[in-house]
């Protein structure tokens, strides 16, 4: 299991269909414009935002460059605080641990806090195969789960749905939805509250991810809004946390940076409604048993890429999605992965490798405008990594015609005589066209003109013009 969805087409194919969906484009345009304005307002309040970004990036780099040290420290701290630490090489191993813990407690269902890690490993499907029902409790995840849909955004998985569509999903798939449910967001939220209440109060096993794991103190952190996280973290007897190995932070003090960066970048708030931190087991308060699964599943592969490594700084805020012109038009599903948008375009191939058509197409799902880097709270240079991955994709799968063309060009450009002859030939071609651009090239060149026009070669080269107007004496 990798972060990508099975059988997804390459990005350009999926994006073409998405761009034609006017309802989707309206929903996305509205939602991303709203969140961009909110983020800009609260980021603008802090005149040291750049210093916070620099600190955030540096803390993450320090952690990643000594990840083995901090993982061992985290394990020691967690164990000392009464948590049980498991290590999972891949998705199957992590899913097996969750299922084992649930079965050990005779649980046929678990409640879940929204977590990218558990989505990445396909936990819900794996538990279902073991006869265990996994209930999503985040409102947007609930909308996706009830609608038998796929998430399309890191923070707001149902961003592609508007209120009217959400009302329809609730009426269709939520047996206890109130008669006469309106599409007012407050009424929809109240319906979700009533629907999940009993489940929270009776659940015995909860599954979460973690936003941060502090090595020094063994403290896990969940940043959330609705209180579904607090319900899952406090009421059930058993808590299983699936934590990507890149989530570790060295010290408790480091949270002072990330608890400023994350809420302002993600929901555009000074602070999100609820942040929970806990260190292992606290007698008389919350779960009696805490399991922490440290998950690799491709992270060490990404870590080995010295340019791509920086993607592991990501704190899953989704600011890069909200500012991306490509994401705003194509939507999250086109990326074919649980990680959509600019960060997904690099993270998916870094975690899973440039293995299939989808992974190889993702580094091109960008105009390289750089808005994602500007918005990133931990300064991931996404355009740099995109270019790096493009070069890897090309190197891995070179086209013989392209290689031949490049070799020919090299010979021609090395010789002044051949070069000037080639330019003159191009000028002749240019004279065949009356307009300034070529709309369709023949043969393999068609791949270029499918998406853009090709320029017409100048009728006269600069060299010829220079010789003609200044003479040859200079």
């Amino acid at each position, binding site marked *: 299991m990798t972060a990508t969805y099975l059988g997804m087409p390459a990005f350009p194919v999926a994006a073409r269909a998405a761009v034609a969906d006017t309802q989707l484009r309206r929903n996305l345009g509205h939602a991303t414009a709203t969140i961009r304005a909110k983020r800009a307002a609260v980021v603008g309040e802090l005149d040291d935002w750049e210093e916070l970004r620099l600190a955030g990036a540096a803390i993450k780099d320090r952690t990643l460059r000594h990840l083995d040290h901090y993982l061992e420290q985290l394990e020691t701290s967690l164990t000392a605080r009464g948590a049980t630490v498991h290590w999972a*090489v891949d998705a199957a191993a992590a899913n097996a641990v969750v299922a084992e813990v649930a079965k050990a407690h005779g649980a046929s269902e678990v409640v879940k806090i929204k977590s990218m890690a558990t989505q990445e490993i396909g936990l819900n499907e794996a538990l279902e195969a073991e006869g265990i029902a996994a209930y999503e409790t985040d409102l947007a995840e609930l909308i996706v789960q009830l609608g038998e849909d796929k998430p399309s955004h890191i923070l707001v998985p149902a961003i592609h749905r508007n209120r009217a569509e959400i009302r329809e999903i609730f009426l269709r798939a939520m047996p206890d939805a109130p008669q006469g449910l309106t599409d007012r967001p407050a009424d929809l939220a109240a319906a979700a509250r009533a629907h999940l209440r009993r489940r929270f109060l009776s659940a015995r096993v909860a599954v979460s991810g973690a936003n941060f794991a502090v090595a020094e103190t063994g403290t896990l952190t969940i940043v959330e809004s609705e209180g579904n996280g607090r319900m899952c973290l406090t009421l059930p007897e058993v808590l299983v946390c699936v934590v990507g190995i890149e989530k570790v932070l060295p010290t408790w003090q480091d949270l002072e940076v990330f608890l400023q960066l994350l809420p302002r970048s993600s929901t555009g708030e000074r602070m999100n409604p609820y942040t929970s931190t806990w260190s292992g087991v606290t007698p008389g308060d919350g779960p009696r048993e805490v399991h922490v699964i440290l998950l690799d599943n491709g992270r060490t592969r990404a870590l080995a890429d010295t340019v791509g490594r920086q993607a592991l700084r990501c704190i899953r805020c989704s600011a890069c999605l909200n500012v991306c012109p490509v994401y705003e038009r194509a939507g999250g599903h086109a990326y074919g992965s649980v990680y959509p948008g600019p960060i997904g375009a690099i993270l998916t191939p870094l975690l899973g490798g440039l293995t299939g058509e989808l992974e190889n197409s993702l580094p091109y799902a960008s105009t390289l405008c750089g808005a994602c880097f500007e918005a990133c709270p931990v300064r991931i240079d996404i355009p740099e990594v995109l270019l790096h991955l493009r070069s890897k994709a090309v190197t891995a799968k070179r086209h013989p015609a392209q290689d031949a063309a490049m070799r020919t060009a090299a010979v021609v450009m090395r010789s002044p005589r051949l070069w000037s002859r080639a330019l003159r030939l191009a000028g002749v071609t240019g004279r065949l066209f009356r307009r300034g651009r070529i709309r369709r090239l023949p043969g393999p060149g068609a791949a270029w003109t499918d998406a853009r026009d090709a320029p017409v070669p100048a009728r006269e080269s600069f060299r010829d013009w220079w010789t003609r107007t200044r003479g040859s004496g200079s």
Partner: protein
Amino acid sequence: MTARDEILGRVRAALADVPGGSPDDEPVPRDYRRTHHDVDLVALFAERVADYRAVVRSVSADGLAAAIADELAGQRVVVPVDVPQTWTDGLDARRDEPPLSVEELDAVDAVLTGCALGIAETGTIVLDAGTAQGRRALTLVPDRHVCVVRADQVVADVPGAVAALDPVRPLTWISGPSATSDIELQRVEGVHGPRILIVLLVT
């Protein structure tokens, strides 16, 4: 080989390009501010809490009991075992001892607590299960949370709060009533946590 050894081995192999030595050799510039505001922190705290559509009332120490009664009279209230007696005089208040079951908690209308500290910049209150705060479920299940914050508990900003808090304790940072932005990214108050948050600010 255990999964632990395998992962740590892969991490070390992936970091072959990184020179050894102490993590502290990697510089972390901490040039950000410790505080964004220095004066009128209590007023700023009140304003920022209210921004989340929580109710904020400034009261004097002498007026606190009356303010509590105003907010909670006639309701079934649960309180941590160690809240001051003066807070609960005249209320239908039940102390969490022995601890209420989840069903019992679900049947009360409100919870009354103190807090560990407040953060002015972000309008946040933090509970650390310390004095007058009780276990985490107390302030989660009831629909109305009345929280008493003393002016001297308000710190300026997030770094000061992190420094003052003990990570060993289970912490809950609360910024307004429970809310969601999951529908069209508009904030709506009132999902699973308390839908009403009332902060009594003792000045």
